[in-house]
Structure formats: structure tokens, C-alpha cells
């Protein structure tokens, strides 16, 4: 499928899904749907770096919160419409992602992963000590009671996240099927060999970290309007990081389908258990499924449906590739 065809069909999907959602009368559906869609964006964004390039980012919550807090700042200063917030959040988180790409020069494997975790905590400490955005007390955001055209504000947020998810998936698919994607795959399989074969590894890695970070920031930008009360503990919640890793790994990391499947699967399970059982238990599910899948089904859900023959044809991963 050509890129343009895929973008068009994603756009059609978004429109159809939104039209279908107009038939739902229960507002809870939109609150839950927003969360699942937000996870599709986060998981897809994580997979651009983690799945395609092979660099593990534990700092998803940091990027997500950068987007959320940039919205808080803008809201207090001027109060622009959400699409503007998303763009600003994306630019800021993308800039931090670019910086993180610089880390990849020196850090591989475990060291990179821990560096990203450190990055998230450093950002969190600064936000916690920054009184303008509420510090550790948190901040209240009063959202307008109604949105233009749609009426209900949560419907508006849902539409925004749906569009964002469509964009994220289309971007991921475009990367996957382009020279950029093949370059990233080369880095993932063996960075030294890629470098020796003339792949501009640093440039590609910078593109990958920047895009991944920017998408995470964009997913976070509408958060203050969704939760209406934001504090560092919830904005930087480790659950975002765990979910962003678990969803692609459960779904499958090699294609754009994986994170989407994983996000829908895990996101729905979590929403259902949150409502029916308890809100701590839903996180336990994520942890258990993550461990089970990496141990038992290393290629995720999409790996389960792949014919055996194709799996064997895949080139053997080099043991040192990831380190």
C-alpha cells in the first residue's frame, strides 16, 4: 500500500469511528475511549524508538508530563485552544527527545534505558519544585463547560485523541515502510554493521528519538483538560511508562499493528478491571501480562498469528545487537 493510500484510509477510519461514536449515549464510553486512544499514541510513539530502533525508553512518563505541563503553563498564561497546546507540547517534548538522542552516542542497551529513567526523574524534580505550575500541590484546570460544534467537552477531547492516534499510527506506518525504517531496523539489528555499511546512524537515531518524544508530548498535552487536576505524582505516573512498554511488547514490536493491538487489548482490560474490580489490580495485570508475554510469546500477539515458516525465515537476532 502506498503511503498516501494508508494516510487516506487512516483518515477514513478516524471519520468512521467518530461517526460511530456519535451513536453512543453513555459519556463513560468517551472517558474510557480517551484513555485507550491515548495509550495507542503512547505505545506507537514508544515503538518508533523501542521496536524499530531497539533503544528502550523508560522515561515515557517524563515526555508525557512535559506535554501536560506545557499545557498547564500555556493555560495559565493565555489559554489557547487544544490543538495549539498539542503542537507546543509536541515541540517541547520533541526537543527533549532530540537531547535524549544525543545520549545514544555514548549509551547503549541498559545504560540508555536507565538514562531515560533518570531523565524523567530529573524533569519531575524540577516540576515538583516549580511553584508556577502548582509544585507538589498540583494544579486545577477549569475547562470550558462546552466545546464548539460538538457540545460536550469530553466528546471534543475524544475526537482530538482519535485524530492524534490516527496521525501517530500513520506516521509509524510511513516510517516502517520507508528508507528511514529500514535504516532504523539496521541499527536495531547491528549498529556497528549499519554504521560500517554507510547508514547515517546518528541522524536516524535523532529523527527516531525526536519523533517518539514529540508524539508522547502530544499525547500528554490534552491531559490537564481531561483530568482537570494535575499533580506531579499523577502526571509522571510510572504506569504510563510501564504501559508504553508493555503494550508494544504484548502486541508485537516489529509492525505498527502491534502497539495498536496491545494498546486496545491492555487498555480495555485495564478500564474494565478498574471499574469492576480495583484500580491497583489493573496495574498488576499489566505487569503480569508484560512478564508472561516476554517470557512465553516473544513476538507478541502478532507473532502468534504469523505462520511458522515465516518466523524461521527471519534473520537470527545477533545476541550483542541490543547491548
Amino acid at each position: 500500500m502506498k503511503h498516501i493510500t494508508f494516510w487516506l484510509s487512516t483518515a477514513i477510519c478516524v471519520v468512521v469511528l467518530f461517526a460511530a461514536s456519535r451513536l453512543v449515549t453513555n459519556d463513560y464510553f468517551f472517558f474510557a475511549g480517551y484513555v485507550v486512544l491515548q495509550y495507542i499514541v503512547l505505545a506507537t510513539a514508544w515503538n518508533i524508538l523501542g521496536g524499530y530502533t531497539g533503544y528502550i525508553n523508560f522515561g515515557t512518563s517524563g515526555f508525557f508530563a512535559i506535554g501536560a505541563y506545557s499545557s498547564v503553563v500555556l493555560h495559565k498564561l493565555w489559554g489557547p485552544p487544544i490543538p495549539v497546546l498539542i503542537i507546543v507540547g509536541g515541540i517541547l517534548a520533541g526537543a527533549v527527545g532530540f537531547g535524549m538522542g544525543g545520549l545514544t552516542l555514548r549509551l547503549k542497551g541498559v545504560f540508555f534505558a536507565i538514562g531515560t529513567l533518570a531523565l524523567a526523574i530529573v524533569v519531575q524534580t524540577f516540576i515538583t519544585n516549580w511553584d508556577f505550575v502548582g509544585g507538589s500541590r498540583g494544579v486545577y484546570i477549569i475547562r470550558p463547560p462546552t466545546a464548539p460544534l460538538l457540545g460536550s467537552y469530553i466528546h471534543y477531547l475524544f475526537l482530538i485523541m482519535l485524530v492524534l492516534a490516527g496521525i501517530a499510527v500513520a506516521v509509524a506506518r510511513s516510517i516502517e515502510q520507508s528508507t528511514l525504517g529500514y535504516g532504523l531496523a539496521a541499527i536495531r539489528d547491528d549498529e556497528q554493521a549499519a554504521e560500517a555499511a554507510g547508514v547515517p546512524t546518528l541522524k536516524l537515531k535523532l529523527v527516531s528519538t525526536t519523533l517518539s518524544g514529540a508524539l508522547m508530548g502530544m499525547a500528554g498535552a490534552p491531559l490537564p483538560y481531561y483530568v482537570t487536576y494535575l499533580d506531579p505524582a499523577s502526571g509522571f505516573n510510572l504506569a504510563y511508562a510501564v504501559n508504553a512498554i508493555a503494550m508494544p511488547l504484548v502486541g508485537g514490536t516489529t509492525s505498527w499493528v502491534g502497539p495498536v493491538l496491545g494498546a486496545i487489548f491492555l487498555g480495555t482490560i485495564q478500564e474494565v478491571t478498574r471499574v469492576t474490580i480495583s484500580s491497583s489490580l489493573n496495574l498488576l495485570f499489566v505487569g503480569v501480562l508484560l512478564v508472561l508475554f516476554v517470557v512465553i510469546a516473544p513476538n507478541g500477539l502478532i507473532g502468534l498469528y504469523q505462520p511458522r515458516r515465516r518466523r524461521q525465515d527471519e534473520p537470527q537476532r545477533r545476541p550483542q545487537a541490543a547491548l
Partner: protein
Amino acid sequence: MYWDLFLNAIASGILLGGFYAAVTVGLAIAFGMLDVGNLAHPAFVILGSFCCYIFNQRWGVDPILAALVMTPFFFLLGAAIYQIYYLSFERRGEEGLRGLAFFFGLLFITEVGLILGFGVDYRFVEAPYIGPTLHLGGIDLALRTLTPFTISLVMVAGLQLFLSKTYTGRAILAVSQDSLALRLMSVRPYRVKLIAFGISIATAALAGAFLIIIQPVEPSIGRDYIGRVFAIVVLGGMGSFPGMMLAAMLLGVAESLTATFYGPSWSPAVAFGLLLLTLAVRPAGILGRRA
């Protein structure tokens, strides 16, 4: 007055550093020597804290004694985890991405499991050495940090002796130096690593006792230690115990000074900032240790 404050901050930083060494020594073995990036190590420390808490509250057992009783069980737990890790990742050569995700999942399961079991309240233990403070000149040494500091030094020294003097200990060092050469000499690194990883988790039981002696514990504070322990291991030169002690003291003093002069809300950034700095400035040589 200012000077006194400064000296006290240094002293309590050194004591804190001794405790950090106890938390880190397990990871120095797992990550520094065996190349197993056990992100979940701090979670096992918290698990140790809660075991001590149960022993202390139910039967009034001294937390350190309780931890000593727990060590064999933690050893078995560690061995079991390594067994899974080996079969699922190391043997397939997939320890990078999936192995890390595995430990990240374990960290999360332990934390959420403890929250489900005990809630998010802060728990503490009772022991005779928790209240009093030793006054030496102008310096105050709280016994609740001095005791863990002393025992931690003994533990690290003991482990150092074990590694350099005993047959098993030397085997562990050999695995850490060149696991491929060992295989060529028809030694199975697997069994040695199993024992070493067991020891690594066993130290977490003691570190957990120290933690709950020093401060009240709730399940999610383990996260604060991920940055600290990895910073110390990396800064200390990946598996060298003297280097690790030095790095732990350095971090302890840096955090204590920050907390005294700028406020405790900045101290998490110290450890992670130091870690980022170390990772960024340290030449790539440490990464290519095996290559």
C-alpha cells in the same frame, strides 16, 4: 553554627552512603559482574523491608535478625528468577530489550503486589537502636543510621572476602571477567551465575532491613532507589567493591548536603543528575567491557 551544620551533613551523608552500599552491593554483583540488568533490585529491597516489618510487628523480632533468617529464602527466590531469565532470554541471546522489560515488569508486579497486600501507608519497625543519638563533639550520629552503616560495611567486606578467597567466589569473578573463556574450559557459567544471582538477591533482604530501620517504608519508594543504585554501580566502575563504597559515600554526602542547604525535595535530582552526568561523561569504554 554554619560549620556545624556542614560537618553534620557530611557525617550523616557518609552514614547514608554506607547504607546505599548495602542496597547497591547486590546490583554490583548482578549488573557489574554478571551483566544482568536487574532493574527490579530496589523492589526486592522493599520486599525485604516488608518481610522484616511482618516479623517485627507479629513477633517482635529484631529487624536485622529477621533479615538474616530471610536471606536463604531470598537466595532461592533469586536463583528461581535467574533460572527463568536464563531460559527465556540469556540462552536465546535476547537479554537486551526483553530481559529489561522482564525486570521492569517484575519491579511493577512486586510494587503493586505489596500495595495490594499492605496499602500505601508508611510502615516502620521498632528496635532499641532506633531512637538514641550518639554525640561526638559537635557531630550527632543517629544510631538508626550508624547501625546499618556498620553492618553494611561488615557485609560488603565479607562478600569481598568470599569473592577473593573461596572457590565459588573466585568462580564468580572468573565468570565476570571472561565467560566465553570459561566455556572453552568446559565450565558452565550458568551454575555459577545462578549462585551469584541468588547471593545478589539475598543481600537485598539485609538492605531491606536497613531501609526500614532508617526510614518508614511504603511500597513505591523503591523507584527512588533505581537511579541511586545504578548511579553507584556505574560510578564505582561496574562491580568493583571499593569503587562502589566510594561512589556510595559520594552520593550520600552529595544528597545530604543538598537536603541540608536546598531542601529535601531536590535530593532525587542529585542521584539521577549524577547518574546522567556519569553516563554522559564516562567514555564508551565501560560499555564495551565484553566486546
